[in-house]
């Protein structure tokens, strides 16, 4: 599973809107504790769809705060993150 984290709830909502139109299957989940203590939400999807989503978000001018990958039930690795 891959998780995309955004700067604001507004951006998550906007991302959801454009993703829905694209057909990529996603879920909106609470940001996992291992990633951040933020009480907000994140978008999770299959690892295969990561690049498609990155392209889509870039095309819609929605900034990504970070992308993470789950490697076991408790472990996550950071693909990249911005401040």
């Amino acid at each position, binding site marked *: 599973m891959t998780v995309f984290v955004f*700067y*604001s*709830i*507004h*951006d*998550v*909502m*906007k991302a*959801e*809107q454009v993703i829905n139109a694209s057909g990529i299957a996603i879920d*909106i*989940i*609470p*940001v996992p504790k291992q990633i*951040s*203590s*933020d*009480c*907000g*939400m*994140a978008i999770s999807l299959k690892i295969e769809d990561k690049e498609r989503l990155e392209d889509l978000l870039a095309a819609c*001018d929605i900034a990504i705060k970070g992308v993470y990958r789950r490697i076991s039930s408790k472990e996550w690795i950071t693909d990249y993150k911005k401040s």
Partner: protein
Amino acid sequence: MVAGNYIYMDNAATSCPKPKEVIDAVCHHLSTLSANPGRSAHSLSLEASRALFNARQTVADFFGAVNSRNIIFTLNVTEALNLAIYGILSRGDHVVTTSMEHNSVMRPLRHLESEGVIDLSVIPSHTDGSVDMDGVAKSVRPGKTRILAVNHASNVTGTIADIKALSDIKGKALLLVDAAQTAGCLPINLQGMGVDLLAFTGHKALLGPQGTGGLVISKGAEQIMPIKRGGTGSNSEFEQQPDFLPDRLESGTANGCGIAGLARGIEIIKALGIENIRSHEKKLTEIMLEGLKKIRRVRVYGPLDPDRQVAVVSINIEGMSPSDVGYALDRSFNICVRTGLHCAPSAHRTIGSFPQGTVRLSMGLYNTEDDVEKTIDALTWIAEHG
């Protein structure tokens, strides 16, 4: 339209009645979507977040905003104007405004002036309420003037300002427009009109509930600072206010059900077509102005031209106080109007009706020609017998 047994001629204060769809949208939100938007990721919170997001998009599309994140929801236009004024201005800035402004612009500016923060030029408008364009152009100081604040239409005379022309003479200042009287009854496009900050209220021509409004922020005004700080749902790990929009400027739980009603109001307006609403209100204004001309002892203020005003007409009956006229309209004819100074003392000084004020007849989408004719008949009777 008759609201109950009343003829409602006070739409410039708040539009009434509200469309059933707006009432339904508020009720629907309260009964099914009242979880907290953006604070959790459970299904009900998500639904509430989506509703708020969709409303932001609706407002952004309606006003031609660059991005829906540039819509900041507020309680009303007063709060939006305070946000723009206190969020932009700093020590040493110069501000230009007109004498036709509502106290929701005038009081924050006078406050900053009295505190020695800003230098304020209030340009006297013409007696019909129109902006002295030369006066404004001459007062703008290159490099010094930070805000040019004007209403899109006066709440006293209905006089419409040429916003595009003001944008052409503002220089590097930010053009702050108080659209309380025009959002929902005149077409507004931020980019087309050269507006930097547009403040609107939800409960007038946008047909929404009270407790809704907002500030639309153009790209060039995005540096605006918050006047409130607090929880926003995003970035909760930090004790500092987020620096991105809309969170930077919107703290605390939003008026979710009210905003749902506001969004529905805007959808109704879009479906009807704002041009059609404008022509309906122009027609009512024309009948009102023509009818008033025929009543002896009535003085009408403003441009006296439906093309140059929104559906707001201020009058006085010679020898009678505005409050007596208003009282007679209400108690003898069930016609609701607002009398007095309409929170705009400086505007009444400009048109020559200070301190007694005027009787303000303000029509809306749901008024009919029959309402206007009945109002004219009532005023005719009052002028003869009062």
